[in-house]
């Protein structure tokens, strides 16, 4: 069995982990955009209350009713220029068969053969932005204008967020 000292040390370690976590917070950013002239541009409003936003993954989804191939995807920031570029992406590499037809076929069945696999891949990015920066996600490619919409989900953590204080939680 753990001694009282080991137990206390373990609990202290757990509380320390919480303390450290209080300065970083999971934050997901989602938006649905309608392409215009074969391009989509999305300016991400990072929260100003954090010192940095560490962007870990992006999920992308769009209806699979167009044969969208060979488009590219760029992330830029206002302070540091281009941070990430992917060229000649195919939608199946992105795993972006998320959303099915939004217009039913004659059987009122949207799950058309081959389009049921609503599998979304996460693209690991591992990019860090200053809290005051803005990031621009830019998609361009043939067929993009035929899309009804493009979904973005960014997963990351706000670092150094000052508004979270451990004292707020009371008895811990």
């Amino acid at each position, binding site marked *: *069995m*753990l001694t009282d000292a*080991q*137990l206390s040390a*373990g*609990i202290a*370690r*757990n*509380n320390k*982990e*919480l303390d450290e*976590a*209080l300065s970083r*917070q*999971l*934050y*997901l*950013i*989602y*938006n649905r955009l309608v392409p215009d002239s074969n391009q989509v541009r999305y300016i991400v*409003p990072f929260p100003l209350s954090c010192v940095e936003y560490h962007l*870990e*993954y992006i*999920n992308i*989804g769009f209806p699979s009713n167009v044969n969208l191939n060979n488009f590219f995807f760029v992330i830029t920031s206002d302070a540091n220029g281009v941070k990430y570029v992917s060229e000649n992406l195919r939608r199946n590499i992105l*795993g972006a068969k*998320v*959303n*099915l*037809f*939004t217009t*039913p076929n004659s059987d*009122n*069945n*949207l*799950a058309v053969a081959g389009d*049921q*696999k*609503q*599998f*979304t*891949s*996460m693209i690991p990015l591992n990019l860090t932005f200053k809290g005051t920066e803005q990031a621009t996600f830019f998609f361009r490619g043939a067929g993009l204008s035929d899309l009804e919409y493009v*979904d973005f*989900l960014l*997963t990351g*953590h706000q670092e150094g967020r000052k508004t*979270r204080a451990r004292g*707020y*939680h*009371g*008895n*811990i």
Partner: protein
Amino acid sequence: MVDRNSPLPYRSTPLKDFEQLKADFMRETQHELDMQTLRWLYFIPVRSVMPASDGDDQQVDIKSDAHFKCLWVTGDYTTLGAEQADVGACQITVRVSDASQDLKLMNSAVPLDLFLSPGRVLNPAIAGNPSNSLFNPFPFGHIFAANGGILCEFQNAGENENIANLLFVGLKLRAK
């Protein structure tokens, strides 16, 4: 003594050292068992049954004995539309918050199919296409403090009742 840096410890270990090896193993196993009183695997399910075109808030409280360090989330949802047709497309969104201080973890409600992959399940009572019964965990790293809670605000845009399940997977960290 057993040379722990040796790539082949067993081949070169004299028989008499096996007793020591066994004792080390037992002690380490016991230590791991003891440590589980401080940090242990934990699952928190959240289930929502939403009427047609309506929302539903579900909150799970985190008890005072331990923090919950969430690592992953997985889940599923039904895709029923008008007249109970299984339309196959996700119609449910959710917004998850850390209820301890109403800390929003998402900027807005997110469609479930964008992070539950694929997540769609078939209602067994309704004929339709096979469900996608592959559920990949989505990274969801956040510590929910003891005495806090996980708040999930679901919204169903479907013209029929739909069900969503989320499963938060992580570790309990004992607190005092």
